[in-house]
């Protein structure tokens, strides 16, 4: 799979986690691709940490508004029903439990649902931004990530080695080859991508995979 196609594969599967009326937050990277896989009749509201609720897609060139960006700096459109709030209200929405589902990338994610995605000590430490609050407080946290890193090491591990963004916070992990659910007993393999064998998923995953009684589905 090319880079583009595996990212799209992940984003398309992630889009199924959004339904009518939901309040959604997209982290940077793959999460920004998810919205385009939702049918236009599904009305949902995208939250950005800088106080926008109800972002649409990115602006077409020439239609940018200097006062309207998302939390990553991109110029965005608004959907009907949008509103603006200050930073304290925007995060009250997050910590108060009004984000129905959030999608974040990962550096490492453990079978118990621990997430590390904000710091590589000595290499990359730009600050936590809003990620810790989103990770800890979204009602449902979906991690979307390539299954392995550039050196082919598993990103889904037994224990995170990097400093955590949040502990036991991940509800679902979607990669280009598998959909997995952290549970108290371990990581449950819910779905395998079309054309991928169970054995490949096992080999490329850094923690044991539990199988549902009916066996994993396909996506």
């Amino acid at each position, binding site marked *: 799979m090319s880079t583009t196609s595996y990212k799209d594969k992940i984003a398309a599967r992630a889009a199924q986690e959004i339904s009518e009326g939901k309040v959604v937050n997209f982290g940077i990277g793959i999460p920004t691709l998810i919205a385009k896989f939702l049918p236009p009749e599904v009305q949902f509201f995208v939250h950005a940490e800088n106080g926008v*609720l109800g972002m649409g897609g990115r602006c077409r060139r020439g239609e940018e508004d200097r006062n309207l960006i998302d939390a990553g700096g991109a110029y965005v459109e608004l959907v009907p029903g949008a509103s603006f709030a200050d930073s304290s209200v925007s995060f009250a929405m997050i910590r108060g439990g009004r984000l129905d589902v959030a999608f974040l990338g990962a550096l490492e994610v453990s079978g118990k649902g621990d997430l590390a995605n904000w710091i590589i000590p000595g290499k990359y430490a730009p600050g936590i931004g809003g990620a810790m609050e989103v990770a800890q407080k979204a009602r449902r946290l979906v991690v979307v990530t390539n299954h392995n890193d550039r050196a082919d090491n598993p990103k889904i591990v037994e224990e995170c080695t990097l400093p955590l963004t949040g502990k036991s916070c991940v509800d679902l992990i979607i990669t280009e080859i598998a959909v997995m659910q952290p549970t108290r007993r371990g990581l449950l393999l819910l779905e395998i991508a079309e054309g991928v064998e169970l054995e490949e998923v096992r080999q490329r995953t850094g923690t044991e995979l539990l199988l549902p009684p009916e066996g994993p589905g396909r996506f």
Partner: protein
Amino acid sequence: MNKVCSLEEALSRVNPGDTVMVGGFGVPGTPFTLLDGLLKGGVNELTVVKNEANEDHMGISKLVEAGLVRKMITTHLGLNKTVIGMMNRGEVEVEFYPQGILAEKIRAGGAGLFGLLTDIGMDTELLSSTKQTMWFEGRELIVESALKGDVALLHAAKADRFGNLVYAKSAMNFNPVMATAATTVIAEVEEVVEIGDLDPEHVHTPGAFVDHVVLLEELSEEYGILEHHII
């Protein structure tokens, strides 16, 4: 996407024993119709969080008088002799807070915080004797816990179908903070507009905080001008 529903459907979310936050400061912003609905339903053992108990025989006072309220968390009952009498006779439990501290406790609950540190009342016998205090950065402070509700009952001037709310003038008061601080947030509104009709810069409470919107078909007398407050 349509959060507009009937009064009955919305109020079916309120259960006996619930903590109910009620917007309003005097008449403006008080959800009289939702309160009348609660009264009719007879849901009891309620803990009510409200700035005051309205005036005698109005709004929340009717629920207290009907014995549906176990406890009031409030700031001032000066305009309600009936509820003061019931409090003095032990017929309703009342917990008082300084008004802005009550607002902050609710706001903290809504913002997913657990408590706040304040010096309000620190040197007064009543407050300093009944609260948890701690030393922080060289001074003794009161630790106030965050307050959350099972339900919030609000009154707004307008809503769209996503639940974005706009309040009128001094009818805002406690409504925006309570909108953030309850598991189920119900707003009665004087007008429902289509999604997209409200200016995003003028929305007072973003729709993400609101679960149910009840359109008022008419405003009862309670919403009107109180003769005794006219000069």
